[in-house]
């Protein structure tokens, strides 16, 4: 590795002013820009103007870093005598003699270039407990420009690694601790423990995990959790690759996290939760957004309210992690809290609808299809109720009317979507619905078959529920909650009593785009369509 540059000068780029200095020397193995630099130095006649221009930014850059590194190394205190190019050091610099106060030395993140403010540990060449001798490579550090081997100036034992592989630290922060003898390892470790707290400012926001505070020892960096063979004992922790990466980054003790993924595995979301972060937005586009719905409206907000201060579980309780679908529901429910919603209810007379239903039932038409069709027809007249607000600044008018219908399926909830429900006739719609439900039960729905809804319909009437209130799924403008149709005594304008079937319909909508009057008008239209149900068959 180091031979690739042959015996080219390795500029030692050292950090000044830290007194009891780490004894570190850097050798450089792949600094491409320097490579260019050398080439241009040696090439007296530039090949063409073009190349000169192209390379100049890099050239000047390189010169700066090169010269500054020389000057910084000139101010260095005593360095290892083995440095081969001590000639370049300025003689005028007074050499301070470094008195070693402790035989425990810290290894600092070196400044490998003038622009480097923090460095990432590519890999530790040595591991904890290894005996080091002067001049050996200990760690590979990645700067903004290249990877470099960092060597030790002293013999000793690598007592502790403070900053693990793949982590970053500010220039000058301790990344490891070197003990001179075995006896000092414990002391060095203690020192490392106190350091790891201090070095974190460079790392991403410290995670408020109890683990980080009480056991600041370097996180186990081995990706494979130990204890694999004892399969019979406590179940071994299974974490996905990205979850492991995140755990390292946020310094979350992965063993302390309860996995909520399939087969109880720890997912990136679990780590985010353990680190007290909201799930990263990045996943939204990709994550198979399952849906939402009123199944357990009370539960979700409660669960999400105080993730950090959960009361201790009641003894004897069982913790059952969410399935993927349940996690998606939970996530969507929490997300829905950011939308200002309001509700408008409306009683709808259903005698005509019920009569129609009896008529078309033999032809395979379901109540769901009837309601979806009615809603779609009403939406066609009130496009604002079919719109959505994506960014808080605009209306997004959807060109299609896609009615999502909430369906409870084993252990979850999904919303198959009847696309273009206003355009399809009742029979096609019913047939389509049947297919969707079958697919949903077989878990074979394609993403566009459950996440393309523009309006949601939820019906709990079959349970005898007379009215309820649905939560608006993120990304949609409104959701309709339909209660049971019941015979009701009605007094008309003339004071005559009669018994009519009435159901209560309750719509929840996003008030950023849909106002009370919009919703009221929409419900009035819907009610008229239902009361003149024959129009549904047209």
């Amino acid at each position, binding site marked *: 590795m180091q031979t690739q540059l042959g015996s080219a000068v390795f500029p030692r780029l050292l950090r000044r002013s830290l007194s009891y200095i780490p004894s570190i020397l850097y050798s450089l193995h*792949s600094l491409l820009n320097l490579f260019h630099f050398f080439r241009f130095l040696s090439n007296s006649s530039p090949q063409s103007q073009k190349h000169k221009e192209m390379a100049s930014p890099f050239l000047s850059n390189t010169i700066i870093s090169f010269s500054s590194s020389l000057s910084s190394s000139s101010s260095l205190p005593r360095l290892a005598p083995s440095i081969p190019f001590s000639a370049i050091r300025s003689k005028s610099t007074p050499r301070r003699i470094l008195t070693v106060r402790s035989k425990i030395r810290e290894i600092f993140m070196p400044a490998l270039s003038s622009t480097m403010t923090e460095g990432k540990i590519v890999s530790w060449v040595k591991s904890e407990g290894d005996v080091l001798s002067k001049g050996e490579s200990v760690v590979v550090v990645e700067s903004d420009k290249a990877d470099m081997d960092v060597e030790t100036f002293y013999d000793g034992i690598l007592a502790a690694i403070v900053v693990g592989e793949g982590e970053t630290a500010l220039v000058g922060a301790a990344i490891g601790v070197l003990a001179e003898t075995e006896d000092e390892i414990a002391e060095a470790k203690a020192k490392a423990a106190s350091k790891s707290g201090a070095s974190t400012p460079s790392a991403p926001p410290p995670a408020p995990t109890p683990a980080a505070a009480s056991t600041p020892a370097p996180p186990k960096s081995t990706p494979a959790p130990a204890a694999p063979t004892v399969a019979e004992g406590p179940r071994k922790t299974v974490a996905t690759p990205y979850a492991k990466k995140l755990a390292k980054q946020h310094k979350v003790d992965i063993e302390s996290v309860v996995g909520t993924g*399939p087969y109880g595995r720890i997912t990136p979301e679990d780590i985010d939760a353990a680190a007290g972060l909201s799930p990263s937005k990045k996943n939204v586009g990709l994550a198979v957004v399952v849906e939402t719905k009123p199944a357990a409206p009370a539960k979700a907000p409660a669960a999400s309210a105080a993730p950090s201060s959960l009361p201790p579980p009641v003894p004897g309780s069982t913790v059952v992690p969410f399935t993927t679908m349940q996690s998606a529901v939970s996530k969507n429910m929490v997300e829905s809290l950011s939308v200002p919603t309001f509700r408008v209810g409306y009683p709808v007379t259903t005698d005509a609808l019920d009569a129609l239903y009896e008529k078309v039932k033999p032809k395979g038409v379901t109540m769901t299809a009837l309601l979806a069709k009615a809603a779609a027809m009403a939406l066609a007249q009130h496009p604002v109720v079919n719109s959505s607000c994506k960014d808080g600044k605009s209306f997004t008018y959807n060109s299609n009317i896609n009615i999502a219908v909430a369906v409870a399926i084993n252990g979850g909830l999904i919303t198959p979507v009847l696309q273009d429900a206003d355009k399809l006739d009742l029979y096609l719609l019913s047939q389509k619905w049947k297919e969707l439900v079958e697919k949903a039960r077989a878990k074979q729905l394609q993403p566009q078959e459950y996440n393309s809804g523009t309006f949601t319909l939820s019906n709990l009437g079959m349970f005898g529920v007379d009215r309820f209130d649905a939560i608006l799924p993120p990304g949609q403008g409104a959701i309709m909650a339909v209660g049971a149709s019941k015979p009701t005594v009605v007094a008309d304008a003339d004071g005559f009593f009669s018994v009519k079937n009435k159901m209560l319909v309750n719509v929840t909508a996003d008030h950023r785009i849909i106002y009370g009057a919009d919703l009221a008008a929409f419900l009035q239209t819907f009610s008229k369509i239902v009361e003149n149900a024959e129009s549904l068959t047209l």
Partner: protein
Amino acid sequence: MHSTLSFSRATTVPTTNYAFHSQSPINLRFCGLRREAFGISILTRSSSGRVRLSTRGRSKRISASTGNNGTPPKSFDYDLIIIGAGVGGHGAALHAVEKGLKTAIIEGDVVGGTCVNRGCVPSKALLAVSGRMRELQSEHHMKALGLQVSAAGYDRQGVAGHANNIASKIRSNLTNSMKALGVDILTGFGTIVGPQKVKYGKVGFTDNVVTAKDIIIATGSVPFVPKGIEVDGKTVITSDHALKLEFVPDWIAIVGSGYIGLEFSDVYTALGSEVTFIEALDQLMPGFDPEISKLAQRVLINPRKIDYHTGVFATKITPARDGKPVIIELTDAKTKEHKDTLEVDAALIATGRAPFTNGLGLENINVVTQRGFVPVDERMRVIDANGNLVPHLYCIGDANGKMMLAHAASAQGISVVEQVTGRDHVLNHLSVPAACFTHPEISMVGLTEPQAREKAVKEGFEISVAKTSFKANTKALAENEGEGLAKLIYRPDNGEILGVHIFGLHAADLIHEASNAIALGTRIQDIKFAVHAHPTLSEVLDELFKSAKVKAPASTSSPISEPVAA
């Protein structure tokens, strides 16, 4: 020494023993696709001059000697029969027609073989999608360009459809091109029944027997599945299944980190999966130049949702069933002890490919395969169990295992057609480029640095290495894709290019300037005067050649050495 041997073989001994070289890989360390290239080149380079003089004499002699056997018929149905209509067979057939040979091609499955139907072609469709997904998902990248894109998503079926469409389109192109040229496409599995005689037919139908002056075996390969791994085609899959993209698992283990595994990791992570690599060797990407694989790991593995286990075998893989996930038992490659158990949603077996040579009837002509591969010499002539050449029988492509790449098969096929039409030709495998279509891409031609160093020590010459970075390339920076490296391994004394390795934007397209230079024997001191359009990515190689320090002066005959005054 080699040249003497080949000389005497050609002139004095009609049935020479050809087994003295290249049957067992000369150096096992060169695993994967580059394994044999090194050994072969020494032979070609040292012997080619003399062999050419004597070829014509030899080929006559061979046909005379086989004439004594009495078996081969006097007149043939075809001049050339090719068994297997993959990319290798197709390339050979087209060239044969151009050379005026009456040609037939036998195919038992669909035209196009692995590459078109289950390999390079559909995988490029998936990679085209993954590249765009990756770009659209990279907020940082988009921001740097000043673009705003809302969450990118994909439709799995649409992606799979794209891959399938492109495969069937290329397949029909191949079929039509052969039909248009008058190549007979014979349907059925081909079996060699005797010298210059092949039977073919579908299972359950009567076989047809056809004869040909020359026969090329081009039956290709199938995914190799190690023992203990149960492939169910759903949760434990090979590349054949993965290319159909029937589902995108949340977490997939990829066994093998060669170019197939790498490309799929690129696809799966772009589509949202997390990936765990399982590699038997101590390092990921073992086939590549170490420096390139190190950089590639920093770009293609570490920042992505990928982790890995190296130095382990996946000794047992059980598909997901009975409510259990896919279970993978890992065994330490050295100690053979159980090391870990993984539970994942799917496993892709990308441990390489095995030759598809069963049922070819090789026993009828006394040919014994080696681990399934058909033994051949450097001219793709098949060698029998006694080490003798089988007259008029050639084997190209994955079935001979020399270099398992589609374009290598095609080049070998063309080389064979050249030979049977009277011009001796030996393919220089060191000039065959290879590419891995990750984002960014990796490409290479010739030797890796360790191989070159070993050769330099053995043969007593010096080598030097030159490197350029994509960070210094205007076009790459304009695309905001400055991550990348090009590396040249060369002889400073005479300017010979020994190897070029590129990791960076469009590396696969950039390699050909180097591979052509190697194929044509162009030296660095000459090629550095060739002009490249500015600003283009090709200037990465321009810079690379110019940064090499060659002692030899530019040759006076070089067409580009003297700039022409306008």
